[in-house]
């Protein structure tokens, strides 16, 4: 096992440890303000470089005109160098450059973390718990921004003929909403909760690659800002899927889409890579694969999807940028390329992407259910097999997005089969849930309510997915609001409800404060009712013939659309209740929550809330699984102060079998 028991030592030609960096004033240490300065300088440099490169690329009849604002090179290079400047301004390269120059690198041992305070949340920090909180706040901001765009979309769709804003604004807003949600919510659970809790759950004091993890977070605000800045450039008219050749045809706003999405792809590759290595290498003695919590299984499965699928996205975005700037023709049929190439590359990533979104939700609810039913998780191995099955099969189904696009017709039954097969491992989650609920002692706390809501919503979402997998039925449903309703039920009804459950469940652990439970119950009931009221009618709207991403629709569908829009506004209101609850509880009320309010057996709950720096005073020895409720005489989940020699002995020979659960 790779747990280090010795901290890294400083080295240097002159010997001796250099003065700690922490003694400089806060505005001289690299943090978000230096990152912003770096990004601005980088953008300006890139823009200048791009103007220089592009001056020979104006393809119009009037080259004597001043360079138009519609050239792509300055934008693309500006964004690229802005990212480099942002990362440099954060101080990511500082240690590397020092090592390259032969200077001593100040030591940053695991226990020697930043002093508590707000400033560390604005820095590039190596403490995984700080990164988790950074991710949490970031994800909430991204979610709320994208949600506001959704409110704008529904406001426009109130009337089929009167247009609140112009159709170009509408299509830009649709693209921003979709891309922001799909791109940034990939890490909505793995980022905050995966990064924070996985080391705690497996008994580790750290993650495998803290710098990689912190960098994966710090790329997300840049991706968010690049995507938003697209609006200043005229936006992009092709939604989150970016089909070529429309995406090649578009003006400069499309470059913000490609750069932001590619950047986020890099971020999720890093995040997933870190989680995989942490779980494989940093488990405490006794933490066998058959004892790791189901949430960790979900994080590992999601991470494999991230690491294997996101590179295809990055490649596809790169090819799109090349087509748009360097006049290549990957996706242009008249010069030997193919629009199908983009569709296949995108969906080869795009389908695992939706399982990147769904699997963490499964992990969260499978983790929460045993705690509030006070029973072991029914069919642990089945649940784990379900996650692995979904991960494997998700790579073989992508052509179901292309059933009507003129692919080889013999391929359609093949992908219909794989898509229908993937519903089997997905169904295991329900088997596990139903078994866990059998003869249980159910306590309807706020996290439990959200978990149950997740199961309800994902049931509808999953069954509608089976409708879509059937090719003849898909002929009516593809490209319509039926698909919209399906994926909102699975992603928002599944993932976001699970995210809310995770917030209410783990915020006492992560921040040591209590979220208001009464507001929480109001939040749940309003969100659940208005979510279903918003998206259930959309199945009918889609079946009645309304395509996606349209600003005009048949007049007879106006009543349904109005019902949906009003419900959507109320749904926004329910999210506002959550935001108020979150902000009030963390900033104003700050009611302390000590210990283990949910009486959970999870290893993360056995340390203080919030956990001490370094997580555990010593690496614990795990004695039993986390779901051993109801078993008389079950050993505690771990021994947090094992006798001396146990841990080192664990590496000398295989861990002796302890008392089995």
């Amino acid at each position, binding site marked *: 096992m790779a747990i280090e028991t010795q901290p890294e030592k400083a080295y240097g030609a002159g010997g001796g440890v250099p003065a700690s960096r922490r003694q400089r004033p806060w505005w001289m240490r690299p943090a978000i303000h230096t990152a912003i300065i770096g990004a601005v300088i980088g953008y300006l440099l890139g823009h200048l470089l791009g103007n220089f490169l592009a001056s020979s690329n*104006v*393809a*119009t*009849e*009037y080259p004597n*005109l*001043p360079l*138009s*604002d*519609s050239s792509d090179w300055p934008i693309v290079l500006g964004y690229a160098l802005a990212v480099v400047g942002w990362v440099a301004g954060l101080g990511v390269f500082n240690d590397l450059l020092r090592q390259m120059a032969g200077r001593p690198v100040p030591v940053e041992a695991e226990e020697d973390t930043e002093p508590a305070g*707000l400033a560390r949340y604005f820095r590039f920090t190596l403490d995984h718990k700080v990164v988790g909180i950074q991710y949490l706040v970031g994800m909430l901001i991204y979610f709320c921004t994208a949600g*506001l765009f959704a409110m*704008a979309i529904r406001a426009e769709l109130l009337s089929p*003929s*009167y*247009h*609140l*804003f*112009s*159709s*170009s*604004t509408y299509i830009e807003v649709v693209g921003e909403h979709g891309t922001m949600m799909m791109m940034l919510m990939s890490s909505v659970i793995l980022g905050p909760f995966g990064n924070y809790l996985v080391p705690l759950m497996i008994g580790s004091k750290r993650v495998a690659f803290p710098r990689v993890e912190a960098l994966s977070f710090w790329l997300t605000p840049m991706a968010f800002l690049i995507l938003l800045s697209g*609006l200043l450039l*005229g936006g992009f*008219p092709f939604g989150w899927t970016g089909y070529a*050749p429309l995406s*090649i*045809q*578009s*003006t400069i706003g499309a470059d913000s889409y490609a750069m932001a999405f590619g950047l986020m792809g890099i971020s999720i590759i890093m995040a997933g890579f870190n989680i995989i290595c942490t779980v494989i290498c940093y488990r405490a003695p006794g933490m066998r694969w058959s004892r790791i919590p189901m949430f960790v299984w979900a994080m590992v499965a999601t991470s494999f999807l991230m690491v294997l699928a996101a590179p295809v996205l990055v490649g596809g975005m790169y090819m799109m940028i090349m087509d748009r700037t360097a006049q290549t023709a990957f996706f*242009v049929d008249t010069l030997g390329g193919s629009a199908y190439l983009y569709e296949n590359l995108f969906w080869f990533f795009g389908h695992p992407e939706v399982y990147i979104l769904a699997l963490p939700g499964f992990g969260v609810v499978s983790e929460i259910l045993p705690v509030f039913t006070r029973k072991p998780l029914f069919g642990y191995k089945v649940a784990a097999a379900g996650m692995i099955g979904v991960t494997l099969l998700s790579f073989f189904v992508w052509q179901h997005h292309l059933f009507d696009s003129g692919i080889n017709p013999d391929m359609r039954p093949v992908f219909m089969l794989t898509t229908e097969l993937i519903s089997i491992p997905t169904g295991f989650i329900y088997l596990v849930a139903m078994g866990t609920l059998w003869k249980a002692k159910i306590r309807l706390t706020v996290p439990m309510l959200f978990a149950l809501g997740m199961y309800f919503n994902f049931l509808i979402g999953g069954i509608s997915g089976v409708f879509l997998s059937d090719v003849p039925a898909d002929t009516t449903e593809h490209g319509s609001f039926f698909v919209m309703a399906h994926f909102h039920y699975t992603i928002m009804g599944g993932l976001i409800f699970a995210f809310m459950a995770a917030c209410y469940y783990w915020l006492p652990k992560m921040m040591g404060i209590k979220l208001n439970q009464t507001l929480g119950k109001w939040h749940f009931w309003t969100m659940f009712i208005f979510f279903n009221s918003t998206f259930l009618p959309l199945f009918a709207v889609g079946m009645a013939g309304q395509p996606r991403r349209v600003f005009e629709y048949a007049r007879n569908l106006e009543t349904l659309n109005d019902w949906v829009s009003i419900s959507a506004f109320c749904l926004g209101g329910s999210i506002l209740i959550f935001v108020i609850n979150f*902000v009030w509880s963390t*900033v*104003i009320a700050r009611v302390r929550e000590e210990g283990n309010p949910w009486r959970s057996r999870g290893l993360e709950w056995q340390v203080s809330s919030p956990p001490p720096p370094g997580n555990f005073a010593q690496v614990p020895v795990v004695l039993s699984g986390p779901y051993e409720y109801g078993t008389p005489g079950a050993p505690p989940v771990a021994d947090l102060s094992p006798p001396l020699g146990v841990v080192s002995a664990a590496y000398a020979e295989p861990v002796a079998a302890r008392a089995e659960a």
Partner: protein
Amino acid sequence: MSLPARVSLLVVAFLAVAAIGAFVVLHYFLSGPAVENYAAGVAPNTGATVHVVMQEDPQNSVTSTPDWVSYFIQDPHTKAWVHTTLFQVPAGSRIDMTIYGFDGCTPLRNNYWGLVTGTVGNVEYVNGKPYHFVNSWSGCNVAHTFSIPGINLNVPMASPGLIQSVKPGLCGSSPCQPGDPSKVPYRVMKFSFMSPHTTGSYFWQCRVPCGGGFLTGFGGPMQTIGFMTGNMEVVA
């Protein structure tokens, strides 16, 4: 941080977010090019005649993308040329359009759109001569089209018969002024159509791939309101 400090920080943050939101809504969502109102003072659904005047130029000197071709609409009262593609007409009326074509020719991707449809008599008058079909492939004939798909209106805009790259001489600064055609060549297109009785927004577009520098010629100005595409608001 003490409680009053936290509360005041929260209030400031909330006000900042609200201000940003209001700014975004006002300046981004609810703004756009001017709408030329040709419907003012005209009773709808009476068959009254409204005269709309537009021009299309090979470039525009008034935006940050000067190499984009663009339409201009004449303001009905001041007679000044406004850089917009949004106009209002009364419902159920006869719309007489005069369009000055200053731009050079580009072939259509689908030559079918050289057919005049949806006008009174299915005809357009180019410099006074009637045409039912203008062939954009047989010569330097078509610069743009004025098409309103919602009422099946399609009118090709004739171009002065010179190819800019071969023999330059088209109008060089916008908005172009109709004057001496031997100095700055142009064509005058006149046609009429009946505005529909149902009120609403009818989008109009050009069908010639004149978005130079964009794939298939349909990017850039072709998909940006205010240049080669816009809305005809039919009001009651």
